[in-house]
Structure formats: structure tokens, C-alpha cells
């Protein structure tokens, strides 16, 4: 696995290289600043498989660098792991919003590093399989390979992140911040029908339309949104909800109406969006942090819709 590690401290970089090497990762390049890192990404003939970024760097911070990385087509889905000292934990919200996949805390712990890198390897292997499949299918219709039941990163949607990253974000929050978190699910009830009627690119565009309209309706809120698969999104709120969910659902419906002519020309129905009730973490007691996502998503659904992976676990 080809890794890029970015930190302005040469001692830390040396230590990181040692620990990665001891864990079996020897193909590692380093950069001492965000600008040098971007140059390496742009000049590299084969893309990096994983990027490790220090958050607190002079000049371009790790969060800004992460956002720049995500603007590059080759790196939209590459695992980006942020590295931060305890004092930098307050930057983590911004890092996840900028597209980070996971985070590690300094000083580095060998077991933690190995666990995170194990997750990155599994993620990257999965992505390589998808890319290989896309390349095969691409010969026929140049569309990305999609499994209807699987989570997808919705490209180009600000505050839209991967489902796995949303889980990692919740796992990172301390008890007091987790207490303030709430979540709700969003079900595109006719997603299965639309998926069957159109190609994968168009289906991705439909999900992008729903995400854009939804985040527009929530623009006053501090939220992160992820697509969980099977027509389900989940939205995590980091501050109290200031509007009624029914109003938000209505605003989403109105927003999607504006796409009516476009959908008609594609012979597709407008996405039919339903919101679940709000789940507050403060009411969940000592349950594991990611349980809130499962509960937010566990709302009634048509019997013909396949269960996404997380729902099979809940059921």
C-alpha cells in the first residue's frame, strides 16, 4: 500500500515511518507541508492508497489540506486519516466535514496505529475491487459499479461524508459532546424503483439531488450527512435542531419539485423523501456511540426494499 504521511515535525515523521515499517508498510513518502504534499499527489504517476495528515501544521492546516485532497478526482475516495494531539481534538469536527475517513491521537500507540491501518487496508482493498469492476463495466457503459444496498460517498456535496467516516466521527466524540448529538434517517422510498429504471450515474445524480436539497433545508444547522445504502441517508446534528422535522421534510419536497422537468425528461419519478423521528443520544444511555445511526435508520420501509447491511444487524 502506497502511503503519504504529512507532518511539519521531522521527529514525528521519523517515528511514524518506523512504526509503519514495523507494521509491514514500507512504501511510505513524507511531506513536511501541505503544499509539498499536494505537489507529491499531483506529480505521482501512481496514486497513493492512503494519506496520513497532521492537523496542526503552520501555513496550510491538515483540515485545509484534506479539503484540497478531496477536490482531486483521484483522491475523492482515498482513506485520509488525521493525526492530532489531544489538544487538537476540537479540530476533528472540521476534519470530518472536510472529508477525513478516520483519526489517530498523538502520542502514537502501536496497537491503535495497527488497528487504524488494518481498517484502511480493508477499505482500500474494497475500493480496488470496486475500481476493477468499474473498469470492466466501463467498457460497456462507463458507469460506476454500484451495489444498491451498499453505502456510497455522494461526490461534491459539502458536509456529505462516507458512512464509515460518520461512524468514526461518533466513536471519536467524548461523552459530553456525544450527549449533545442527535440524528434522523432519510428514506428515499422509491429509490429501489429509480435504481432499476436508470443507470448508475443517474442514480448517483438522484442521490446527489436529494442530499443537496436536504442540506439546503438544513443550512442553518451544524450537520453531517452520509448515504447508508438502499435509499437511506442519515443525518447527524451536532447542535439542537431549530426547525420541525415535518417542515424540513416539506422543504425537501418543495426543493425536489424544482427538478420536476428534468426528471420527467429522464422518464424518472421524483425522489419521494420521508424523514424518521429524531433520535437523541442523551436518551440512549450507555449504548455504543454508533447505535444512534442504526436507530435513526430503523424506520418503517416498504417490504420489497432490500435491507442494507446495518439493518440486517439491527433486525
Amino acid at each position, binding site marked *: 500500500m502506497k502511503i503519504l504521511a504529512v507532518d511539519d*515535525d*521531522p*521527529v*514525528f515523521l*521519523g*517515528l511514524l*515511518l*518506523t*512504526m509503519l*515499517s*514495523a*507494521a*509491514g508498510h514500507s512504501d511510505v513518502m513524507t511531506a513536511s507541508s501541505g503544499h509539498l504534499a499536494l505537489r507529491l499527489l499531483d506529480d505521482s504517476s501512481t496514486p497513493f492508497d492512503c494519506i496520513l495528515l497532521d492537523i*496542526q501544521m*503552520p501555513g496550510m492546516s491538515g483540515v485545509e489540506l484534506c479539503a484540497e485532497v478531496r477536490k482531486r478526482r483521484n483522491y475523492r475516495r482515498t482513506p485520509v486519516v488525521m493525526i492530532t*494531539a*489531544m*489538544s*487538537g481534538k476540537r479540530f476533528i469536527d472540521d476534519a470530518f466535514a472536510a472529508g477525513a475517513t478516520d483519526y489517530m491521537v*498523538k*502520542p*502514537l500507540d*502501536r496497537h491503535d496505529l495497527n488497528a487504524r491501518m488494518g481498517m484502511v487496508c480493508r477499505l482500500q482493498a474494497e475500493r480496488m475491487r470496486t475500481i476493477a469492476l468499474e473498469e470492466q463495466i466501463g467498457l460497456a457503459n462507463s458507469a460506476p459499479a454500484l451495489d444498491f444496498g451498499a453505502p456510497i460517498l455522494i461526490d461534491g456535496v459539502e458536509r456529505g461524508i462516507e458512512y464509515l467516516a460518520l461512524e468514526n466521527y461518533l466513536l471519536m466524540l467524548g461523552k459530553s459532546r456525544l450527549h449533545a448529538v442527535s440524528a434522523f434517517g432519510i428514506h428515499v422510498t422509491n429509490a429501489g424503483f429509480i435504481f432499476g429504471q436508470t443507470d448508475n450515474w443517474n442514480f448517483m445524480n438522484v442521490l446527489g439531488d436529494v442530499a443537496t436539497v436536504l442540506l439546503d433545508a438544513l443550512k442553518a444547522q451544524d450537520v453531517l450527512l452520509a448515504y447508508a445504502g438502499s435509499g437511506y441517508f442519515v443525518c447527524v446534528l451536532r447542535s439542537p435542531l431549530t426547525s420541525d422535522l415535518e417542515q424540513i421534510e416539506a422543504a425537501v419536497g418543495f426543493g425536489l419539485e424544482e427538478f420536476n422537468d428534468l426528471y420527467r425528461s429522464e422518464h424518472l419519478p421524483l425522489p419521494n423523501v420521508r424523514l424518521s423521528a429524531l433520535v437523541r443520544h442523551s436518551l440512549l444511555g450507555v449504548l455504543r456511540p454508533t447505535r444512534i445511526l442504526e436507530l435513526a435508520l430503523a424506520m418503517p420501509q416498504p417490504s420489497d426494499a432490500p435491507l442494507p447491511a446495518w439493518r440486517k444487524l439491527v433486525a
Partner: protein
Amino acid sequence: MNSANASQSASSQRVAIALSGLDVARGKFLDLIVRRVLDFEAFSAEMRARKDEDGALKGISALCHKISGVSETIGFRRAGALAMELELLIEDERMGKRPGPEIWGQAGPLLEQLMDELESLLDD
């Protein structure tokens, strides 16, 4: 070589790489101590002279951030703990929780302790 022996050998090799890498990192860290202590002294003088206090606190915090990020892993636990405590204290000031001069009342002595600890690492 059977697979169990091969796996044990690879594992021993990784342990050896890790240990030699830690020695290198420790050496680099010790090489930088004199420069860091001099930087700390310069920032400390600025604080005492009440000259660019914000810049001086930022500088101290950034150095502490670097020290706390590696110290524990390379075996300098006390230096790491002191650096982290000092960084968090200064961050309080920077987040507007307490004014700079009040912070310095606590941060100054802590910085002295940190510099003493760093210098003692050179003696060892």
C-alpha cells in the same frame, strides 16, 4: 524454513526495525533539545518583557505540541506530559477562557520545569 519459522523471523525483523527506528527518533529528538530550549528562552523573555505576548504564547504552544506528540512514544514520558499540560494551558488562553498575563503566572513556572526536564534528558 517452515511457515512458523518464517513468520517468527519476519516478526523478529519488525521488532528490530522498530527498536532501531526508535533509537533514531530518540537521537533526532535529543539533537533538537538545545535549539528548543533556546527558543523557549527567547519566547519566555518576550513574555517577561510583555512584548508580542500572543506570538510568544503561540510559539511556546507550537513547540510543546511537537514535544508532546513524540515524547511518550520514545520513552520521555515526563517531558511529554509537561509539554501537553503547558500546551493545553496556553490553548485555554487562546480560546479566550483566560487572559495572557494570568496564564503566564502558571505557564511560566511550568515552562521552567519543562526546560529543566529537557536538559536533564541531555545529561542522561
